[in-house]
C-alpha cells in the first residue's frame, strides 16, 4: 500500500496550550503562557465555520468531534479538504469550543464522539463546509479578475483562470470571507474523490512521539493545585464523615473538601502529595443498601430475568414460540457476559478555574457539549459564562462520554474561587467507579425442522440497560432499544443479520447497582457472542458447517462480509495441525463486519490465538490505513475483554482495583491480524467499534472446534479449556 505523505504534526488549538512547552522539550522551567489565543486573529480569515485560511495558505480545519486515537481528526479533515481542494500538506486542525458552538447556534452541530458516529453522521455537512468555502474562494478570484466564475477552477490551494493566471487561497481568503455563503452546494461524485478513500498518514502523530502532546492530565495553569478524589466505595452510597485535621498538616496539602455528599477530595500542590494525604485520611461511609450486594446476587437477578414473563420486545417476526414447539429438534443454551471496565490509559481528569463570573474547564472529553452542560450545572452559572477547552484524550472507549469527573472538578474549583484545580483520578478510582460494560445473560432457544432448517428462534436477554443508568429520559416506554443492538429489525445501529421465519428477541431489564455505560462496541459485543455462538450450536445440531448454515439465512451485505473474511482466511482449507477456524459476523454502527479466528488449544488447555482475519464493509472507506489500525486495535480491546475482562462485586464494592487485578492483553498475546476493507460504497458506516464484537465470538467458536468445549460464560480465564477437564 502506498502512503501519501503529509504533515507529521498537528498544531492544535492554541487555547489548549496553557503552558509553554519549554519543560516538555527538555528544559526544566515551568514557563506559563495564558490560555486563549483567539482563533480569529486579524490576519486569519474564517471562510466559514469549518475552514480558516491564513495568508501563508495554511488551512485550519475545524473539527467538532474529539480525537481519542480513532483517527477522526484526520478522517474528518480529509472529508473537508476533498471538497475544499486545498493542499493537504498545508492542513492543520483545531477544535472549536463547546461554548462557541452554543453561541453560534450550534454551527458545528454535534460534538458527541461515540457510537462510531464521527464520519457516518457528519460526512454530509463537513463536506458541504469544504465545498462552500471552495465556491467562495473561486467567486473571490473571479471577482478580482472580473471574469465569469465558470472560467475558474480550484485545486491544491490555487484558483486558476482558463487564461492560465492563478491566485492562492491565502491571497483570496480575505475577500472570500466577505462573500455570502452559496445556497446551492453540490458535492463531488464519489468516483471523483482524490483524498477520500486514500490511505493517508494521521495528522496527529509527531507530538505523540516526543512527549510534547498535551493531554488533560498534563494541563498546567499558573497557581494551579492538584486534587484527587475518593468516592464512596459502594456506588450509590454516601459520605458520613472525614477527619480533615488528620491530614491538613501533611506536606503540600491545601484543603480537604467533600463533594456531592458522596466523595472526599484532597487538594495539594502536587498529585503525589494529594494522593498520599487522601490515603491517610480517615473517612466513614454510609454504604447504603447496596453495601450488602454480592456477585451471586447479581447472577441470581439476571437468571431471574431469563424466565420472566414480562420483557420488552426488540424484534418479532411470526410466532417463535409456536414454531419452536412444533420443531423437529429444539436447541437451547444460556450465556453470560460480565461487567467490564474501560480503563483508558490516561486516568480521568479535568482542570477547572472558577470565579463567580466565569468558569473554564480543560479536559479530554468525548462530548464537549455534555461536559459544558455538566460544568455549568455544577458551577451554577449560565452556560454563556462557561466554556470547555478540549484536550487530546488518552483513550476514551466511551468512558469519557460521561461527565462525572468534570462535575467533580468543577465542584472542587467552586470551593476555591480563582484557583485553578486539576482533579486527577487514581487508577484505583477508575477501576472502582466506572461506567461499566453492562452485564447480561442470554437464553437462546432454536427450533430446527427435520432437514436442519432454522424455523424458530427466541433470544431472551436479561440484564442491564445502559440508558437506564445514564439517560433514563431516553428510555422508550421503559424499553432500552440500544440493548438490541445488532438484533434490531432495521436501522444503522444494528440490523439483525439473519432471515428467520419466526423470531422473538426480547429483554427482561434487570439493573444491578453499578453504573452501566457505553463501552466501545456497546451492546453489539455481548449480543454477537450470544447470537454467533448459538448459530454454531444450531449448525452443529443441524449437522451443517457453521458457514454453510449461516449463508442460507443471511442478508446479502452480511453474507458478503463473512465471505470476504472466509475467502481471505482460507476457511475450509487445511490448517496447520491442531489449528481451527471459528467464524462470526454482525452488523452494527452502520457497518458489516466479520472475523475468522485461527486458534489452537494445547493439551494442557492453553489457548493460542494465532490470527484473526477480518472483513469490514463501512460503505465508504475514508482512510483504509486508519481503518486497518482500528480493526487491529478493536481486536486488542475485544480480546482483552474476552480473555480477562471481568468486574465483580463483594459487599457492593468492585473487587478489581488496578491492572494487577484487571488484566488486559499484552504484546505477547497479540494475534496476527489481516484486515480486508471490503467497502461496497453507497453508505457511511463506522469503523471504531463494530469489529470488536466478532473478536470474542470467532475465538469462542474456534475454541469449540479445537476442544469440543462450548464456553458460554466470559471471561475465558474462568474457563478450563483442557480436554476432559
Amino acid at each position, binding site marked *: 500500500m502506498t502512503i501519501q505523505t503529509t504533515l507529521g504534526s498537528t498544531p492544535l488549538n492554541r487555547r489548549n496550550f496553557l503552558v509553554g512547552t519549554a519543560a516538555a522539550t527538555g528544559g*526544566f522551567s515551568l514557563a506559563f503562557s495564558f490560555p486563549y489565543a483567539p482563533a480569529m486573529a486579524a490576519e486569519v480569515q474564517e471562510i466559514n465555520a469549518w475552514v480558516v485560511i491564513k495568508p501563508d495558505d495554511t488551512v485550519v480545519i475545524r473539527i467538532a468531534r474529539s480525537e481519542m486515537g480513532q483517527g477522526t481528526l484526520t478522517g474528518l479533515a480529509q472529508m473537508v479538504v476533498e471538497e475544499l481542494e486545498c493542499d493537504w500538506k498545508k492542513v492543520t486542525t483545531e477544535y472549536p469550543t463547546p461554548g462557541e458552538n452554543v453561541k453560534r447556534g450550534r454551527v458545528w452541530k454535534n460534538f458527541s464522539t461515540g457510537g462510531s458516529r464521527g464520519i457516518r453522521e457528519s460526512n454530509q455537512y463537513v463536506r458541504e463546509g469544504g465545498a462552500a468555502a471552495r465556491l467562495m474562494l473561486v467567486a473571490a478570484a473571479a471577482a478580482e479578475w472580473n471574469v465569469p466564475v465558470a472560467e475558474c477552477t480550484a485545486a491544491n490551494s490555487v484558483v486558476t483562470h482558463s487564461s492560465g493566471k492563478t491566485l492562492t487561497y491565502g491571497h483570496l481568503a480575505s475577500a472570500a470571507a466577505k462573500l455570502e455563503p452559496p445556497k446551492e452546494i453540490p458535492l463531488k461524485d464519489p468516483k471523483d474523490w482524490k483524498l477520500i478513500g486514500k490511505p493517508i498518514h494521521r495528522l496527529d502523530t509527531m507530538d505523540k512521539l516526543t512527549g510534547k502532546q498535551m493531554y488533560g492530565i498534563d494541563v498546567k495553569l499558573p497557581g494551579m493545585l492538584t486534587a484527587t478524589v475518593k468516592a464512596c466505595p459502594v456506588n450509590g452510597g454516601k459520605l458520613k464523615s472525614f477527619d480533615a485535621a488528620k491530614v491538613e498538616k501533611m506536606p503540600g496539602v491545601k484543603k480537604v473538601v467533600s463533594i456531592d455528599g458522596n466523595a472526599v477530595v484532597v487538594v495539594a500542590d502536587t498529585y503525589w502529595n494529594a494522593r498520599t494525604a487522601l490515603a491517610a485520611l480517615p473517612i466513614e461511609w454510609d454504604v447504603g443498601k447496596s453495601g450488602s450486594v454480592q456477585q451471586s446476587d447479581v447472577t441470581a437477578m439476571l437468571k431471574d430475568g431469563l424466565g420472566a414473563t414480562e420483557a420488552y420486545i426488540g424484534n418479532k417476526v411470526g410466532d417463535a414460540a409456536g414454531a419452536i414447539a412444533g420443531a423437529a429438534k429444539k436447541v437451547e443454551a444460556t450465556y453470560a457476559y460480565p461487567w467490564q471496565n474501560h480503563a483508558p490509559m490516561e486516568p480521568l481528569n479535568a482542570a477547572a478555574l472558577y470565579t463567580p463570573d466565569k468558569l473554564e474547564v480543560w479536559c479530554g472529553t468525548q462530548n464537549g457539549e455534555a461536559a459544558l452542560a455538566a460544568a455549568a450545572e455544577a458551577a451554577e452559572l449560565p452556560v454563556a459564562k462557561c466554556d470547555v477547552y478540549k484536550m487530546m484524550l488518552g483513550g476514551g472507549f466511551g468512558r469519557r462520554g460521561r461527565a462525572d469527573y468534570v462535575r467533580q472538578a468543577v465542584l472542587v474549583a467552586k470551593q476555591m474561587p480563582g484557583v485553578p484545580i486539576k482533579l486527577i483520578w487514581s487508577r484505583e478510582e477508575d477501576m472502582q467507579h466506572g461506567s461499566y460494560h453492562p452485564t447480561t445473560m442470554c437464553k437462546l432457544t432454536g427450533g430446527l425442522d427435520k432437514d436442519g432448517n432454522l424455523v424458530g428462534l427466541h433470544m431472551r436477554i436479561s440484564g442491564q440497560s445502559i440508558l437506564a443508568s445514564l439517560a433514563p429520559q431516553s428510555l422508550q416506554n421503559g424499553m432500552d432499544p440500544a440493548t438490541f443492538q445488532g438484533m434490531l429489525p432495521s436501522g444503522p445501529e444494528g440490523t439483525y443479520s439473519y432471515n428467520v421465519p419466526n423470531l422473538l428477541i426480547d429483554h427482561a431489564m434487570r439493573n444491578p447497582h453499578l453504573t452501566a455505560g457505553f463501552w466501545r462496541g456497546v451492546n453489539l459485543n455481548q449480543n454477537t457472542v450470544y447470537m454467533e455462538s448459538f448459530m454454531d450450536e444450531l449448525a452443529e445440531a443441524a449437522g451443517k458447517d457453521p458457514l454453510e448454515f449461516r449463508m442460507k439465512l443471511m442478508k446479502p451485505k452480511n453474507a458478503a462480509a463473512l465471505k470476504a473474511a472466509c475467502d481471505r482466511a482460507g476457511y475450509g482449507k487445511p490448517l496447520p495441525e491442531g489449528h481451527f477456524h471459528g467464524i462470526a459476523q454482525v452488523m452494527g454502527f452502520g457497518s458489516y463486519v466479520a472475523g475468522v479466528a485461527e486458534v489452537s488449544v494445547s493439551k494442557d488447555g492453553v489457548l493460542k490465538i494465532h490470527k484473526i482475519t477480518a472483513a469490514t464493509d463501512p460503505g465508504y472507506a475514508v482512510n483504509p490505513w486508519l481503518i486497518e489500525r482500528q480493526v*487491529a486495535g478493536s481486536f486488542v480491546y475485544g480480546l482483552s475483554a474476552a480473555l480477562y475482562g471481568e468486574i465483580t462485586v463483594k459487599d457492593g464494592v468492585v473487587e478489581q482495583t488496578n491492572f494487577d487485578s484487571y488484566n488486559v492483553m499484552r504484546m505477547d498475546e*497479540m494475534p496476527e491480524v489481516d484486515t480486508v476493507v471490503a467497502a461496497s460504497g453507497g453508505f457511511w458506516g463506522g469503523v471504531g467499534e463494530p469489529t470488536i464484537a466478532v473478536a470474542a465470538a470467532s475465538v469462542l467458536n474456534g475454541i469449540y472446534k479445537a476442544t469440543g468445549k462450548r464456553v458460554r460464560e466470559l471471561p475465558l480465564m474462568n474457563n478450563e479449556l483442557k480436554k476432559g477437564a
Partner: protein
Amino acid sequence: MPVLNINGQSVDAKADPRTPLLWVLRDTLGMTGTKYGCGIAQCGACTVHIDGVPTRSCQVPLNSVGGRKITTIEGIADGDKLNKIQQAWLELDVPQCGYCQSGMIMAATALLAAKPNPTDADIDAAMTNICRCGTYKQIREAIHAAAKA
C-alpha cells in the same frame, strides 16, 4: 535538595525524597511526557531509562536516583532528529491516542540498544507495556523496521 541527572542536564528536584520519580518529573520538573497510568508498575506508561535500563518510574523513589543517569522521552531525539524508533513510529503511524507511546518508545529504544536485531520473542519479552487502543501490531512492525533502518 537532590540533584538529578536528566537528559544530560543537572537538575535540582525539590520534593519529598520518597516521591516517585514519575511525579518528580511531572509535577516538580514539568516534564509531562512521562505518563501516569497505574502507579503500580503494571502498565509501563511511565517508563524511563535509568543508567540505560528501562524502568517504571512510578516505583522509583527520588532518593534512589541521585547521581544516576536518567533519560526521558523528552531526551531521546537528537534535537529535531528523531531516533530510529521514533522515526519508525512516525512512518507507520503507530500511536492512536498516544498516551502509552512515551513508555512504549522508551521500552523499544532500550530493546534496540540491547538487541539491534530483535526477534519476535525478544519483542514479546521486552515490550510488556499496556496499550488499550491496541497498537501492538504496529509496534512490532515498527521495531522490526527500526532494526533494519
